[in-house]
């Protein structure tokens, strides 16, 4: 066995040991530290395998029998696992300390990481499906452990129900692949014919898409992610969703044996719907974690747009751009994992310090909590797609890919790509609105409650976790050109010849010299600030037409999103209720409640549930409880089987 295999095994063992240690009384911090060390070892092994393009351990096999191994694509996702898990576990050391069920939560966190690493490294169908199921069930258990009120239980129930309904797609796809010996072998499925290929493509899209939170299969995500403890929300949004995309990439890109155009167009459509829908509903949320969960749907959509563009390029035979689009999607996978983890951890720190996640009850935290606030400000700017941070680089690449699809395609595909490009631009603008709201309401201005005025930064471990993630947003934004060639090299069509510069110099674009843009903007800002000088007149109150700008004039989350809500009224369909209290002909008070129902909440699943219940009611008539009826059923079964055997229908 190679050294890297030993390193990864040591990582797995350390995480496992960390679980056991954390479950022991009084060993919470030591256990989480051991888990973090294990995650770091896994990340180092994954990164080295990715960079060197090696293959460690078993190859993919369609036979039954556990097999584990790491190839460069798994290496990338292990690296993402490490850069998400390391800060999260460091954060959890202080965050979980002194909480109820801390030991159990810490052990489940480690098990969750093991199941995620298992999905990424499994090389056979049994190991993959087993880890896949564990990956779904462990967070459900952890959420139930941390809180058991009605809302939480209902969220967990819908999470488990919906992901299992959709998860059936994963089972079908994987088992059909294994049946044709096509796991790791694209030629096998190509030989099986287009019918089987279509079946695998569609079921994988439904199965992995449900877990990745693609609209319209997403409705569990904005319910389940916010109810988990902060560090688990970070892992679920930052990592679990990415692991689902890993499965999608494996099946649709590596094992399908074909790149049908309809698949590329379907992914473009799903990506567009998820990106726009996710961010639009994020804009109208006022609970921070719910907002972040919706924004996860948006980012899954952006990644799917990149993947769809890559498939369309591959179909057209343009391997260079197919690889660039594929690399862009993977780059956004890494970037979103980093800033979404940062934002969820920040939300955890804010909840701990200010006792609320309602944006209308926060404010002024940047001054009180400079570490948390500063990191969250950087994360917000990165996720809003502002240069020179990391989010812009990957969104720029995805947008370039979409435009280049339009440059060289037949009419239908070209129009679809143009529409997707326009939708992505609108998504970016909505993300800016959304995260300007987050930064503005939580971090800037005046505290809206006394608890915010007294909030304090968390202990050093939690601060360091957030600061390191913020630093990574900056670094990846400064040197996207060093990362892209490696990621584009993972494309199934082969690696394009891309020069390794810090900036992105791609033929067909006007180039994005990221370091130069960063230096220019930062140095000019400093210069202009210096030129502005420190001379200023006495501070004055904010202008509010002459009246004192008191609390009742304070702007709210709903107010900031109101223009968008009014304009897109037909899409968002908000409920409004205004109750006017009168006594003696005088208005005593006005109570306003308004909310936007969740995105396509009942559209897909409610008919399914109703249909399921109706079928169950019918089926109950069969269960009469009468022994003779059951004997008749058996007789009918045996007779029909005999008849089938007689006609040779059973082979």
């Amino acid at each position, binding site marked *: 066995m190679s050294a890297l295999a030993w390193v990864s095994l040591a990582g797995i063992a350390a995480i496992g040991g960390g679980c056991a240690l954390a479950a022991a009384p009084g060993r919470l911090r030591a256990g989480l530290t051991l888990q973090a060390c294990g995650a770091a070892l896994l990340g180092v092994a994954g990164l080295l395998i990715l960079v060197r393009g090696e293959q460690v351990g078993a190859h993919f096999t369609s036979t039954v029998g556990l097999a584990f191994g790491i190839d460069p694509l798994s290496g990338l996702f292990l690296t993402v696992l490490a850069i998400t898990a390391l800060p999260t576990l460091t954060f959890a050391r202080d965050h979980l300390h002194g909480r109820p069920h801390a030991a159990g939560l810490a052990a489940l966190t480690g098990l969750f990481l093991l199941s995620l690493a298992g999905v990424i490294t499994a090389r056979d169908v049994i190991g993959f499906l087993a880890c896949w199921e564990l990956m779904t069930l462990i967070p459900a258990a952890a959420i139930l452990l941390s809180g058991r009120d009605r809302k939480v239980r209902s969220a967990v129930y819908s999470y488990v129900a919906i992901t299992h309904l959709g998860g059936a797609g994963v089972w079908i796809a994987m088992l059909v692949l294994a049946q044709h010996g096509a796991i790791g072998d694209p030629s096998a499925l190509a030989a099986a014919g287009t019918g089987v290929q279509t079946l695998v493509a569609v079921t994988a899209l439904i199965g992995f898409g449900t877990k990745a939170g693609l609209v319209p299969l997403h409705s569990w995500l904005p319910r389940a992610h916010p109810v988990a403890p902060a560090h688990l929300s970070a892992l679920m949004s930052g990592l679990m969703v990415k692991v689902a995309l890993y499965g999608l990439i494996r099946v649709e890109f590596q094992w399908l044996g074909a790149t049908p155009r309809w698949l590329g167009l379907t992914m473009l459509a799903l990506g567009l719907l998820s990106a726009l829908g996710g961010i639009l509903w994020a804009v109208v949320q006022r609970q921070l974690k719910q907002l972040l969960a919706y924004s996860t749907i948006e980012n899954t959509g952006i990644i799917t747009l990149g993947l769809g563009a890559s498939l369309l390029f591959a179909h057209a035979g343009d391997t260079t751009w197919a690889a660039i689009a594929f690399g862009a999607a993977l780059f956004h996978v890494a970037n979103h994992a980093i800033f979404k983890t940062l934002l969820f951890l920040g939300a955890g720190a804010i909840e701990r310090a200010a006792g609320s996640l309602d944006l209308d009850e926060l404010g002024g935290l*940047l001054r009180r909590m400079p570490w948390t606030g500063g990191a969250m400000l950087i994360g917000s*700017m990165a996720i*809003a*797609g*502002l*240069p020179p941070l990391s989010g812009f680089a990957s969104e*720029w690449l995805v*947008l370039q890919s979409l*435009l280049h699809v*339009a*440059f060289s395609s037949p*009419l239908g595909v*070209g*129009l679809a790509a*143009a*529409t997707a490009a*326009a*939708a*992505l*631009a609108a998504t*970016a603008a*909505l993300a*800016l*609105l959304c995260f*300007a709201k987050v*930064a*503005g309401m939580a971090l*800037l*201005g005046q505290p809206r409650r006394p608890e915010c005025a007294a909030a304090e930064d968390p202990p050093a471990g939690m601060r360091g976790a957030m600061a390191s993630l913020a630093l990574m947003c900056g670094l990846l934004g400064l040197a996207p050109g060093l990362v892209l060639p490696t990621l584009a090299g993972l494309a199934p069509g082969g690696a394009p010849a891309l020069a390794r510069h810090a*900036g992105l110099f791609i033929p*067909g*674009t*006007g*180039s*994005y*010299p990221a370091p*130069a*843009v960063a230096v*220019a*903007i930062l140095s*000019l*800002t400093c210069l*202009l*600030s210096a030129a*502005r*000088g420190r*001379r*200023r*007149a006495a501070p*004055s109150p*904010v*202008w*509010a*037409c002459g009246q004192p700008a008191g609390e009742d*004039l*304070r*702007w709210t989350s709903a107010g900031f999103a109101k*223009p*968008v809500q009014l*304009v897109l009224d037909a899409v968002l369909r908000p409920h409004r209720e205004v109750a006017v209290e009168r006594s003696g002909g005088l208005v005593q008070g006005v109570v306003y409640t308004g909310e936007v129902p969740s995105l396509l909440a009942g559209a897909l699943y409610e008919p399914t549930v109703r249909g399921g219940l109706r079928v169950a009611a019918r089926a109950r008539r069969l269960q009469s409880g009468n022994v003779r009826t059951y004997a008749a059923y058996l007789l009918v079964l045996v007779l029909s089987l005999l008849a089938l055997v007689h006609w040779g229908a059973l082979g």
Partner: protein
Amino acid sequence: MSFAATALQIAGVFLAPLLPGCIQTCKARLQGRRGTSPLQPYRMLARLWGKSSVDPEGTGLAYRAAPALVAACMLAAIAIVPVAGRAGALGLGSDALVLVGVLAIPRFALAAASWDSGSGFALMASARDLMIAVFAEALLVLSILLAALPAHSTALPAMSAAASGAQVWSGPAHWCGALAFALVLLVETGRQPIDNPDTHLELTMVHEGPLLEYAGRDLAMLVWAAAARHWVFIVLAADLYLPHAGGFPAATAWLIAGAAAVCVALALVETAQAKMRILQVPALLGAGCAIALSGAGLWIAGIGG
């Protein structure tokens, strides 16, 4: 040649305030007033530079850094946009989509500054600005796509070269793109019927709203940034969607003529057209998107030109 192009880009930093000045003068003449000299914005900048800044009570870093950040981003944008179709040597590349990203930073900075001061008028205006930007950004990307289709590249010099000459105007696609870009120009320069740059009635402001609390050098930087926005988009219009010749000296002459024409056209629109209701702006921009998309469809189908 590259030296001349770079010099022209740097000149843009100083020439930018001339554009809103010319528009104001032109508008006054059209309305039968004598109006101010086109140099009035320079006088205003000089006056503001000599005055003290005022920070409202309780504001912090986000409020104070915003004007410098906004002006820095506009400087970067000026360095990205090639003048008369020639890329300069300022090292920020010349990609149209990078320009879109750089222009998004000022919006975020001003929205953050509005939250920091907590001023209701500033927040009302920046919420509207961000809402309009959702549609404007889609329209901007589509009009970039239409100009990039003949060039097969999003590099602005290549797009400008592909849009030169009379041939591109023979098909409908370029006309659709020009129409879409005209709407973008109205939005981004904050002109009527979408926004009224002259209004100081708090309830109707869009671009002026977040500037309400600023004074002195802060305000000077923001006023310059608004003028720089005119420069960036008018030069971009001359590069992509106004008739121009391929050669550099000739293209410079076309640029001057085009900029003058755009200034007069903006003044005409402002004179003839009242400000529209804010909630109708998305419908207008959405119509623009539909036109741009059909233009793209016509081009891809091969009827474009």
